[in-house]
């Protein structure tokens, strides 16, 4: 396949699919077939893109044939191709789960097409080489997510959806402000062109722009002190929607932070220390928040916040090893977190509640769900030989190599606390008897613990998580090559502006 096709397919195909999905709105089955077909094709083309980029280096295409920096550039390096593959896999798995979960689509004609629009927004965020286009891609993704979150319009959804929309709109205004200042200072929004021209600006202005962009994407990624909206808004959506938000949307923010900070700013302008402090506090505050909760989804939501800190820690170290570990961490975390949220949905489905005090002894009533929870939970805490262990060792190693002992210590403490918070779910939901009267449910046999279409994608993601651990060596090498691309943007510039 040609480069242009590989780069445009993940964006264009979901948009077309969304349109057709509306047209065939009368038939839910047809909508589902379209959604699954489109996302499977996107996954295949993303894998093809990754293979191509890994063998031939960064590739780019100019939309409409307008050469950079005039037109909009689509560009894929190893990092964005990796993110695209993991993202497409999550979107597909969660769509299968949503089809299987009773009530996830909320009987709404728009669910499938809005989901596809979100997929297009996620792909566009990973592939764009133009900062204003990144804004548009973010808005596609966010607007779709507003609808997915509030679809159905119950009281809790409207309340939490409001917080989410308001904070996102605020972040968007800040993003436009940052774009305006960048354009006023440099006269371009093409990222490759920006990288050259920002270097000519006064150092103070460079730092200001760097911090402004960090704040914009920090809100989307839920970094301390900008994370308060996340644990409030995520848990109210159906678990399929929460899973894709938790797995992907915050990580798109992390991707944008890594991309802009590595590509646009040089060492003097980068707010390294600030990011390190933010990473440390994000880890600590997030995990302390998680420990205080009593609801499965809320514990997991606070866990997301905490673990965003690890990724930013790897970036803030700004060494090859640190960045590689951060990239590996993002990949591992997307898979593990999505699996956990899908299992959270299964817990709710089988146990009738997501509150620990109402759940209990599910290891006996739903052993499959117990396994589906335990493996990604241990992986998230970084227990060897599961997938979370490798990037954590990488981060600790990278931190020690540049003598950042404080952040290394924090990251280790937070690992233990992560294990504690997840074991709280384990004991509360699976091991100990319920402390309150459980919700009355028809007794389910010790079968799968949920509809096949809910259990199957969760199990597939669990296997993907195990595969990440099994093939950690090759994946780590790939992360190292991706990190080397990020640290030496010459290939990126050469691909965008030959």
């Amino acid at each position, binding site marked *: 396949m040609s480069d242009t096709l590989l780069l445009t397919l993940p964006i264009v195909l979901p948009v077309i699919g969304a349109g057709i999905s509306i047209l065939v709105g009368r038939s839910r089955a047809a909508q589902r077939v379209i959604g699954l077909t489109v996302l499977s094709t996107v996954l295949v083309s993303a894998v093809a893109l990754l293979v191509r980029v890994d063998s031939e280096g960064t590739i780019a295409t100019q939309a409409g044939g307008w050469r950079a920096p005039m037109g909009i550039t689509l560009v894929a390096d190893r990092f964005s191709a990796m993110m695209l593959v993991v993202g497409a896999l999550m979107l597909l798995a969660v769509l299968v789960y949503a089809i299987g979960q009773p009530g996830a689509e909320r009987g709404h004609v728009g669910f499938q097409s809005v989901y596809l629009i979100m997929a297009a927004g996620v792909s566009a965020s990973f592939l764009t080489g133009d900062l204003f286009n990144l804004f548009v891609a973010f808005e596609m993704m966010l*607007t779709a997510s507003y609808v997915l979150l509030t679809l159905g319009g119950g009281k*809790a959804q409207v309340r939490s959806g409001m917080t989410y929309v308001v904070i996102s709109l605020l972040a968007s205004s800040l993003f*436009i402000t940052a*774009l305006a200042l960048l354009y*006023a200072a440099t006269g371009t929004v093409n990222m490759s062109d920006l990288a050259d021209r920002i270097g000519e600006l006064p150092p103070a202005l460079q730092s200001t722009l760097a911090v402004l962009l960090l704040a914009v994407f920090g809100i989307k990624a839920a970094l301390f002190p900008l994370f308060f909206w996340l644990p409030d808004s995520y848990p109210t959506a159906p678990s399929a929607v929460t899973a894709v938000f938790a797995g992907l949307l915050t990580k798109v923010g992390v991707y944008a932070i890594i991309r802009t900070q590595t590509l646009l700013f040089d060492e003097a302008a980068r707010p390294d220390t600030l990011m390190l402090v933010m990473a440390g506090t994000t880890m600590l505050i997030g995990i302390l928040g998680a420990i205080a909760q009593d609801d499965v989804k*809320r514990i997991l939501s606070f866990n997301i916040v905490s673990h965003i800190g690890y990724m930013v820690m790897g970036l803030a170290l700004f060494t090859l090893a640190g960045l590689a570990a951060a990239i590996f961490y993002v990949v591992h975390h997307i898979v593990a977190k999505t699996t956990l949220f899908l299992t959270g949905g299964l817990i709710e489905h089988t146990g009738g*509640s997501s*509150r620990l005090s109402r759940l209990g002894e599910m290891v006996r009533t739903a052993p499959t769900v117990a396994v589906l929870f335990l493996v990604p939970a241990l992986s998230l805490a970084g227990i060897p030989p599961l997938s979370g262990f490798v990037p954590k060792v990488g981060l600790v190693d990278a931190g020690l190599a540049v003598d950042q002992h404080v952040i290394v210590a924090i990251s280790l403490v937070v690992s233990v606390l992560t294990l504690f918070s997840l074991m709280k779910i384990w004991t509360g939901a699976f091991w100990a008897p319920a402390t309150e009267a459980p919700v009355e449910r028809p007794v389910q046999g010790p079968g799968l613990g949920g509809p096949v279409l809910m259990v199957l994608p969760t199990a597939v993601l669990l296997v993907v998580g195990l595969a990440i651990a099994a093939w950690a060596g090759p994946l780590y090498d790939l992360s190292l090559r991706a990190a080397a691309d990020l640290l030496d943007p010459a290939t990126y510039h050469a691909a965008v502006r030959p």
Partner: protein
Amino acid sequence: MNVLLAATAGLLFAVGTYLVLQHTLSRIIIGLGFMSHGANVLLMASGHRGIAPIIGVGEESDFSDPLPQAMALTAIVITFGVSALLLALAYRSWILTHDDEVEDDVADRAIARGGHEDKEVSDEETWHEERTEVDS
């Protein structure tokens, strides 16, 4: 001219920030409108001004910069769409609660009062009890 635009943008941001910090939903939405207008004005100010950029009507050096205008238009359309959605949500919220206040996070409040035994977040009935309890 640019100073005037910058001052306008600053004023819009100031008004917007003040309104967003209020506890009433309608004010927050209006405040967000002000803020995004401020951002758009700033975007307009970022290009240089001049005559309409149509090839053949004058010297190219006299042209205004069309790119910020295109970007501002895109941003306006997006903000318009999201604001409409936000207004619909606010209306829905008013229908459901007959109240324009922005609620605190229910589970946060429960935890602040030190309760594992407290009410469930997703359970709408208990949520309502909780609400009236806090209100009184």
